């Protein structure tokens, strides 16, 4: 294929990606935007088989490559199709990790081909890609393991952790210098291994509600890796696409960190600086008020205004349809119903919106934190369904606890608070919630869907 034609078509693909991100920024055009992106990516993949060659090497591995692509599709599509809504965050983390791994491998192969004739700029870009790609891969795998609850979701802290991480980073940078200086294969291998180690170490201390921020950050990392490998391969499209993802990922990470009320630095290194929590509360058993579904139904039935605060528990129980049924029932009785959506409720920003949209909850009923908070004093009943950290007053009152400083939904201002929980176990961040012991709090233990179904039938009977 003619070089100019190839480049023009590549430019069209780059425009597709810009339109895709643009489309994804608004609910109306989001799906179309994603399809435009998918079209662009497919087109680019077909196009690359017709790429003009500087040298006369022919496509002698085409068949093998096609088989590899088919295999990749056979793995990726069913995984994406079968995954449940609740497990989506870990899948996104995993996809991000394999992308970073692919970018690192591409650069390693390119490095092996470069030989000693390479320019310093090429080697530096290669080294950058390998480091960041490995960090992204290892970090994403750890994030996946945490979210899948294969390993603990709490921050993993070990003595001198900060120094170990700093030493690993220093090791990575030193070997990077070694690679650039000597151009050897052994230094590259050492550097890749150290980078993988660093990727693991830097995600381990991140726990609880901060994990989504890390996914977003690693996503931006992978974008930059792709951009750098585009430089090595002289592929403009990779540079544009990778940079777009790097830039938008950085913004998104910052938006998410702001929603949590903390700096990015605090997210990544907070666990080492925070004082370990006093464990005294764990031992003693304090009285809580628990109620029956009928009690809850009565509270709701005589309220003027009800705010539902959904959390990850709602997603786990797949209770979004039941909660909407209950809300419809209350609305029919003339009760003012709204959903208070914390920006990081669930395990990803916007998780709750997606979930409730699935159950056809009217968009107007979803109220964001800043708007719903001032209305709590006029609210009679707040129904917390499977949320914990996002309503935990410790974020305001206990300096040093992992979520301190995070803006919360101030549900304690309301007349009554009902918690639907599976047990007294603390939330994802692992912090005790004082609100559970508040006299105006009623607890309804059990699976969110079961509890809601019972409340719905009790409401119908009233």
């Amino acid at each position: 294929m003619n070089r100019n034609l190839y480049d023009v078509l590549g430019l069209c693909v780059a425009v597709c990606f810009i339109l895709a991100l643009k489309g994804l920024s608004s609910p109306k055009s989001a799906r179309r935007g994603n399809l435009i992106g998918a079209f662009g990516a497919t087109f680019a993949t077909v196009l690359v088989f017709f790429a003009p060659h500087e040298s006369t090497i022919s496509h002698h591995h085409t068949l093998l490559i096609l088989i590899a692509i088919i295999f990749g599709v056979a793995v990726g599509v069913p995984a994406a199709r079968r995954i449940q809504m609740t497990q989506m965050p870990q899948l996104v983390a995993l996809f991000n990790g394999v992308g970073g791994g692919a970018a690192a491998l591409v650069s390693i192969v390119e490095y092996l081909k470069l030989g000693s004739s390479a320019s310093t700029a090429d080697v530096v870009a290669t080294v950058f890609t390998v480091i960041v790609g490995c960090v992204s891969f290892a970090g994403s795998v750890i994030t996946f393991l945490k979210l899948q609850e294969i390993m603990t979701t709490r921050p993993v802290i070990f003595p001198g952790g900060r120094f170990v991480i700093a030493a690993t980073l220093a090791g990575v940078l030193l070997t990077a210098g070694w690679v650039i200086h000597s151009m050897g294969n052994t230094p590259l291998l050492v550097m890749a291994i150290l980078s993988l180690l660093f990727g693991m170490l830097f995600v381990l201390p991140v726990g609880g509600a901060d994990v989504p921020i890390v996914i977003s950050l690693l996503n931006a990392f992978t974008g930059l890796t792709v951009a750098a490998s585009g430089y090595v391969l002289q592929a403009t499209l990779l540079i544009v696409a990778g940079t777009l993802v790097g830039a938008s990922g950085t913004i998104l990470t910052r938006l998410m960190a702001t929603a949590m009320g903390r700096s990015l630095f605090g997210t990544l290194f907070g666990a080492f600086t925070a004082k370990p929590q006093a464990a005294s509360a764990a031992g003693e058993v304090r009285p809580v008020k628990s109620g029956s579904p009928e009690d809850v139904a009565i509270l709701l039935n005589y309220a003027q205004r009800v705010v539902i605060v959904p959390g990850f528990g709602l997603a786990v129980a797949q209770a979004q349809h039941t909660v909407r049924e209950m809300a419809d029932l209350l609305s029919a009785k003339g009760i003012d119903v709204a959903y208070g959506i914390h920006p990081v409720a669930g395990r990803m920003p916007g998780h709750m919106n997606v979930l409730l949209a699935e159950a056809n909850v009217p968009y107007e009923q979803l109220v964001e934190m800043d708007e719903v908070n001032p209305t709590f004093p006029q609210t009679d009943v707040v129904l917390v369904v499977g949320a914990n950290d996002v309503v935990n007053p410790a974020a305001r009152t206990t300096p040093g606890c992992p979520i301190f400083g995070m803006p919360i939904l101030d549900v304690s201002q309301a007349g009554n608070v009902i918690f639907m929980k599976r047990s007294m176990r603390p939330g994802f961040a692992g912090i005790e919630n004082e609100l559970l012991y508040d006299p105006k709090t009623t607890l309804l233990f059990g699976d969110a869907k079961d509890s809601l179904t019972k409340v719905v039938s009790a409401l119908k009977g009233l």
Partner: protein
Amino acid sequence: MSNAMALLSIFVLSIFIGFEVVSKVSTTLHTPLMSGANAIHGIILIGAITVADRADNNLQLVLGIVAVVLATVNMVGGFVVTDRMLEMFKAKPKRTESATQESGGSK
């Protein structure tokens, strides 16, 4: 303008486009946006195909082919999972009956 300079210009301009395009996104779409951006960097697939195709020896070929598989999973899976999330944002007329049958949550 030298080639390296041209690539650098493209890089810098793309940063600004990336910032500009997502600076005003509502929290509702944070998850799909992250997932969509995640799918877009799966375009490293074309890089993987390029290096696998040009491989000189078996080591390079194996690494290249593994990269092709990983990149394909990232790209295809990423777009499919984003589409599944966005399916739920479809325009929803006030249907009360049909909405109760569970569509996305079954399997």
